């Protein structure tokens, strides 16, 4: 048996034991930075290899490729600047960069998009009367490939741009590419932030470790209690969309909105918390996105690491917003369509991206008040939002929910029928759910209250309860742990693993 088929999920006992062992060995080696880095690399490979040794080789290949190409690019750049040789050397660097990007995107494209493009290519040709007999392949998508590919690409691009010196320590670089807390579902880190941390001694900070545990606990609660319970309703409603009325379908989209938020931001919290336990800082991937007052703000708060990646490596190189209106619109559409495509090889994801681009376009072209001064988060210096803010939050949330219909649907036909049924007279009928909402609603109210109270922090639970008496704080922790255990049923994977 060469390949273990089961993935080490963050909410499994396997991962709990794995993390405890890594944590204890890691800090017992506190005096030896290099050995700590080797341990992280080994732990990361064990973590990934637990699922597939075959695809671990793919990570190793990608790591080695970018490690050496970046060094080569840097050497060419250095010679260029000292010898002033001119354009030919620059071109050589560019060629190497293109080679790296082509190989990385080629691997990603093969595993993720091969079937999609082949099927569409054959379909287009058949419309033109040319019939090809090319069958699709049974390809397994390596978990996390979109995340680590973007991470290594950003590194090589940064080296080419001269923003970063290439890593000279292969262990540190391989650790950066495969760092297990964020390997399979982000946040997509930049070398400037994460790789640098591999070079510096990390001291155990009790306060930081406690914050890490709190963040892991909140992430687990969001995933296991909120997301997985919402999934039961969302799956049922999306599975029976042809039989249910408009209000139930709208509710299904809302359930999915909270499922994907709890699932993905829960994963991010566990990832950041785990990294904190090991003395690393990862970037914040979510910042209370559902409290956004417009879609543009939503996209500044949702999957921040991916949005900022597209901003820095696609949007700005295309001219960003400092170009003509038409080009700016073009750039927005490119970004969102690429973002949709990044999520998966399906027209539903592309339309999801397109719909969000349309939202942004309408908002920026028609509704945005250039003079409006935005506070960083809604009700920044107040406890409650104004009526106007609440109205904007609800409208934004509903627009996002409608876009999630494309994201969640299996195909365009389902998405269109689903939306058509929402916007029918049955929207005004009472929703019909297959089981009682009562228990979920209690947790939901608790969850929303905590999220609202902690909206200014990097994660909702960051400061809540810190000024309480310890006994009450520990009761809160115990309640959360208890609920996580009670609801952590086996087999519920994270949605973003498929991307």
């Amino acid at each position, binding site marked *: 048996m060469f390949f273990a088929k089961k993935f080490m999920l963050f909410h499994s*006992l396997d991962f709990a034991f794995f993390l405890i062992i890594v944590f204890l060995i890691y*800090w017992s080696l506190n005096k030896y930075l290099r050995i700590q880095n080797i341990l992280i690399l080994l732990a990361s490979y064990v973590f990934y290899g637990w699922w597939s040794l075959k695809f671990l080789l793919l990570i190793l290949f990608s790591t080695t490729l970018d490690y050496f190409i970046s060094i080569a690019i840097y050497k060419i750049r250095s010679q260029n600047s000292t010898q002033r040789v001119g354009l030919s050397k620059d071109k050589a660097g560019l060629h190497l960069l293109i080679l790296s990007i082509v190989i990385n995107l080629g691997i990603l494209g093969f595993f993720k998009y091969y079937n999609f493009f082949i099927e569409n290519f054959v379909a287009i040709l058949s419309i033109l009367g040319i019939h090809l007999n090319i069958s699709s392949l049974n390809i397994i998508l390596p978990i996390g490939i979109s995340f680590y590919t973007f991470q290594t690409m950003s590194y090589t691009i940064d080296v080419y741009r001269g923003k970063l010196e290439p890593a000279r320590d292969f262990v540190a670089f391989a650790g950066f590419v495969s760092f297990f807390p964020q390997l399979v579902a982000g946040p997509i880190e930049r070398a400037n932030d994460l790789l640098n941390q591999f070079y510096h001694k990390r001291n*155990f900070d*009790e306060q930081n*470790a*406690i914050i890490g*545990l709190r963040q892991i606990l909140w992430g687990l609660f969001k995933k296991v209690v909120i997301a997985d319970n919402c999934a039961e309703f969302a799956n049922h409603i999306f599975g029976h969309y042809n039989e249910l009325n408009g209000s139930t379908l709208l509710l299904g989209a809302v359930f999915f909105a909270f499922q994907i938020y709890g699932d993905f931001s829960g994963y991010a919290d566990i990832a950041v918390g785990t990294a904190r336990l090991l003395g690393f800082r990862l970037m914040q991937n979510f910042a209370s996105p559902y409290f956004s007052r417009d879609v543009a703000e939503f996209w500044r708060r949702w999957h921040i690491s991916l949005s900022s990646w597209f901003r820095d490596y696609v949007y700005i190189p295309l001219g960003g917003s400092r170009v003509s209106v038409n080009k700016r619109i073009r750039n927005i559409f490119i970004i969102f369509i690429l973002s949709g495509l990044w999520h998966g090889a399906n027209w539903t994801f592309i339309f999801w991206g397109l719909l969000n681009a349309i939202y942004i376009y309408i908002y920026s072209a028609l509704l945005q008040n250039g003079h409006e001064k935005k506070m960083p988060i809604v009700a920044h210096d107040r406890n409650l939002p104004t009526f106007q803010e609440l109205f904007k939050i609800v409208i934004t949330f509903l627009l996002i929910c409608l876009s999630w219909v494309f994201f969640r649907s299996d195909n365009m036909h389902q998405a269109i029928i689903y939306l058509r049924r929402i916007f029918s007279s049955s929207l005004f009928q009472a929703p019909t759910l297959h*089981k*009682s909402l*009562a*228990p979920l609603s209690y947790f939901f109210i608790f969850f929303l209250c905590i999220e609202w109270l902690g909206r200014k922090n990097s994660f909702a639970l960051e400061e809540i309860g810190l000024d309480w008496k310890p006994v009450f704080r*520990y009761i809160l*922790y*115990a309640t959360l*742990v*208890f609920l996580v*255990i*009670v*609801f*952590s*049923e086996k087999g519920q994977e994270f949605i973003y693993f498929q991307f």
Partner: protein
Amino acid sequence: MKKFLIKVLGFSSVFILIISLFIHIGKMYYCNVEYPMWKSKKEFLVQAHDSKNLVIGDSRALAGILPNKIGNNFYNMALGGATPVEGYYTLRRYLEANRPQKIIISYAPFHLRSEETFYDRTLKFGYLTNADLWDFCQVVNQVKQTINGAKLESVYARYHYFLQYFLALNDVFYAFRTNLKKLFYEESGYLHNKDIYREITSQEGQHYFGTNPYFDDLNDEAKLKHFKDASIIINIYLRKLIELALDNNIRVYYINAPFNEASARALMVDFVADYNDYMQKLKNLYPQVDWHSDLHYYSNNCFGDRSHLNHYGSQIFSEYVSRIVSK
């Protein structure tokens, strides 16, 4: 680092302690409806000093034999899913403070084949005492048999050695959370279990399972080709049970509960022949026992589910049992 580890370990220990306590004392909240039945029988064993006669058997005897109907001062000590293993320890413990004159033994052929609920009920509900379980392990180890694929030494260790308790905790948590969900999503498990407990104590240990007026689905036996692979352990314990009763001058009746008509008609010829062979050997060994072990059936309208008699069927079967034990 030390301070952090102490905090985390301290919190975890208190948390696990509270959960473990709840696991032990909160079974009425999170266990299924079988628990109040087993609990009531376990308590009866400890409290009873009036030497009632006993019905010892499985769920078919539990549903089908109405103590009030058969007279003769009987109490229904049958347990859902039980085999002669539990039956033997039931009688052994009962004899510590009581002297019954008669016992009825009634096990479905299915429960002479395998220990389907040994882990889920006997162990989890704590029906056997440590002494019982220790004795059981000795017997099992002598014949080198496994129970549901697990070695008995490890079963004993898992559930009774403190250090290895934590290894079993995951199993307990799983049962805990799946049952606790029921508390949230369906009617309260505690209140339901309490009702079952009251009902079973007021009915001298009897409890109906299926309450349909008619049932013609096939029972487990109707799906079996052979009876040959009867469990060695169960065979040993059935004999131990009979011998224990005979040694204590107790009149022993072995009475089979009926099948529904649909199942009886579907029975495989080989299965019936194997079963009859097995029973004949027992009859030869223990001629003192009053044997009524032939496979027989009642019409489908006597059954509340595929295996258990309904109210109507129990009345008829209990009259039949009454005639036997009153002779």
